């Protein structure tokens, strides 16, 4: 018998001549094999379910008359495995809310889909968490009914969920579906939205380095943290078990330093390092990787075992002066291995940029004053764009072992032209790479990005969040993904990941960029 399950196929030859004839034993055996490959717990009970639904399907189909139904029933053992097998093949190609709809079709489908968590379904698709709607923030008294929009990238639907926990708070995408929120109370929480699991982290006051000048809580809420990553999920929503072996690390403060905390800690602990101005951090092979910031935004992403280094180029009024900036040097720059003291070499490059950074900020403020004047001097072809800043491109480099003789560095960054089947997600959450072919609707070889140019949010008319979209690596074209407007001075859209949680039967969403395979 030959059967197939998903992309895997098993060939099992029991008795070659038995093929044309019905052989219940061989069928059951092969069924057990297909199902036992992903998870050895499903066997006959599922085949009965599949059989039932399939039979119903046949009997109601206009194609079959009574005698044919009799014939089918008499041969039912032969194709008992088909519907359930095929059913999952179809379901694998749907997005999560379509599978929910399917689970309401009939009981057997419902039961089959409830076992979905155990089956090798692809990782669920990222969602874009939209900015708080300004109309809502006016109704301050009505906090309990605050909802938040989530945009499904796969089917372009927007769903609204009650999320009073994030109302008026600045949200960061951590990893594994968690949000880190800061309010004007300066408390920091880790929230698992939808399962509503909330962890309190030490407040802002417990960081070693505070701002040197007096800053309003509103400004602290908006500016204090820059990036958040989690080493692992503090709580498993599927099993409802807590895990106490996690670390949350942030880039914070005026100088964008690093600090971490873990369960039981009453304060944030600084990572003392002479280097400052980190742009992104990621956990890679159980080590922390760091990037030094310059105003060309950088991200580091772990992608199927490789460490990728993504550079985001921005244009527009605020950045028009930087368009001449040549970035070629980076492709050759060697760096140390990904440890805490990495990037000695790059650091020199980046620190030189600091003075320019200051100048550039002044420049942006000037740009606000004449925002209405349309004299764009953008050489990159974005002259029509009214936005003060806009992403114009990306480059990707991969960390590879340095084979060059005599080099004092163990690793170097090599430019990557194609991401293959991977899609990267970067922005104001921890960065993430997912396999596109397993996510119907997500395009391969693309970079999905959200707006994280926090420092310039205040310079915009309606708030930040417009600078997001999809960048195609193959032809360097940027396309929008969310057609509506979702702007906020406080918290611009960020990507969230959603997946089925079996035990509660509810859906959970969280920031996407930190999903770890």
């Amino acid at each position, binding site marked *: 018998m030959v059967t*197939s399950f998903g992309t895997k196929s098993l060939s099992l030859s029991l008795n070659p001549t038995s*093929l044309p004839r019905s052989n219940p034993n061989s069928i059951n055996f092969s069924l057990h094999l297909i199902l036992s490959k992903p998870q050895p717990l499903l066997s006959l009970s599922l085949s009965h379910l599949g059989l039932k639904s399939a039979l119903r*399907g046949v009997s109601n189909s206009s194609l079959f008359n009574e005698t044919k139904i009799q014939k089918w029933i008499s041969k039912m053992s032969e194709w008992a495995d088909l519907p359930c097998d095929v059913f999952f093949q179809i379901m694998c190609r749907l997005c999560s809310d379509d599978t929910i709809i399917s689970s309401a079709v009939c009981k057997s489908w419902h039961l089959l889909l409830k076992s979905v968590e155990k089956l090798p379904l692809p990782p669920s698709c990222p969602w874009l968490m939209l900015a708080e709607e300004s109309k809502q923030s006016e109704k301050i008294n009505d906090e309990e009914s605050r909802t938040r929009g989530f945009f499904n990238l796969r089917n372009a639907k927007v769903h609204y969920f009650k999320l009073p926990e994030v109302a008026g708070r600045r949200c960061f995408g951590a990893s594994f579906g968690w949000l880190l929120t800061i309010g004007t109370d300066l408390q920091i929480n880790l929230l698992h939205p939808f399962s509503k699991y909330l962890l309190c982290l030490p407040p802002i006051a417990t960081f070693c380095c505070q701002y040197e000048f007096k800053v309003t809580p509103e400004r602290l809420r908006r500016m204090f943290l820059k990036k958040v990553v989690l080493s692992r999920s503090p709580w498993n929503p599927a099993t409802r078990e807590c895990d106490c072996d996690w670390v949350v690390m942030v880039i914070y403060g005026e100088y964008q330093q690093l600090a971490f905390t873990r369960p039981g800690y009453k304060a944030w602990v600084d990572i003392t390092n002479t280097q400052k101005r980190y742009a992104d951090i990621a956990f890679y092979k159980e080590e922390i990787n760091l990037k030094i910031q310059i105003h060309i935004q950088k991200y580091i992403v772990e992608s199927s075992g490789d460490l990728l280094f993504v550079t985001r180029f921005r244009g527009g009024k605020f950045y028009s002066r930087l368009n001449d900036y040549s970035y070629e040097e980076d492709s050759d720059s060697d760096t140390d291995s990904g440890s805490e003291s990495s990037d000695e070499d790059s650091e020199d490059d980046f620190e030189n940029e600091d003075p320019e950074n200051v100048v550039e900020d002044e420049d942006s403020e000037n740009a606000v004053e004449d925002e209405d004047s349309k004299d764009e001097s953008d050489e990159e072809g974005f002259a029509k764009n009214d936005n003060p800043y806009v992403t114009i491109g990306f480059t990707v480099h991969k960390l590879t072992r340095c084979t060059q003789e005599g080099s004092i560095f163990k690793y170097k960054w090599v430019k990557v032209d194609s991401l293959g089947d991977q899609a990267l997600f970067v922005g104001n959450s921890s960065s993430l790479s997912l396999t596109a072919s397993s996510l119907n609707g997500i395009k391969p070889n693309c970079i999905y990005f959200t707006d994280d140019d926090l420092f310039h949010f205040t310079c915009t008319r309606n708030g930040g969040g417009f600078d997001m979209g999809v960048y195609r690596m193959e032809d360097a074209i940027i396309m929008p993904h969310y057609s509506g407007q979702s702007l906020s001075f406080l918290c611009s859209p960020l990507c969230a990941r959603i997946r089925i949680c079996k035990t509660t039967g509810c859906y959970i969403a969280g920031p996407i960029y930190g999903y770890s395979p």
Partner: protein
Amino acid sequence: MSNQSESPNPTSSSNKITLKTSDNEVFEVEEAVAMKFCTVKQYFDDENNNNVTSGTSTTLIPLPNVESHPLAILITYCKKHLEIKANNADNKKEMEIDMEHYEREFLKNVMPQELTELILAANYLNFKEALDFFCRAVASAIQNKSVEYVRKFFGLESDFKPGEEEKLREEFAWSFEGVDED
């Protein structure tokens, strides 16, 4: 119904394989086409191993789980598939575009009920490309559709106890919003 046509793949041998469906129709197909059906291939290979010396390839392969109607469609699809593959042997991208174009045209002539039949046949024959294509087609057909539509599409009826379905709909109210009714 006997199916005979030019070999879609010039490099393939001109050996014919005879398939017999459950409703006793006989199909004579090119070996290249039949070998796409892994179930047939497996049977064929085993048969050949058993009769190495006989050298005959006129074996009649019975397919008791496949009716003539879906098999005829599958053979047409398979031939076209091989043809497109042969025409664009050195250009994968071209091939994908051609295939996509053909599949779009193909779906215009297929009824939903036929699709279910085709999936069962493709699954039995273990014809991976077709199975993948049909599953994609079904998935896109029920994507963003209402529960009622999906039921109609598959010819299923609700067997939930009163209240069960309502509870489910309430729990996941968000996913039932904004779907197409037909």
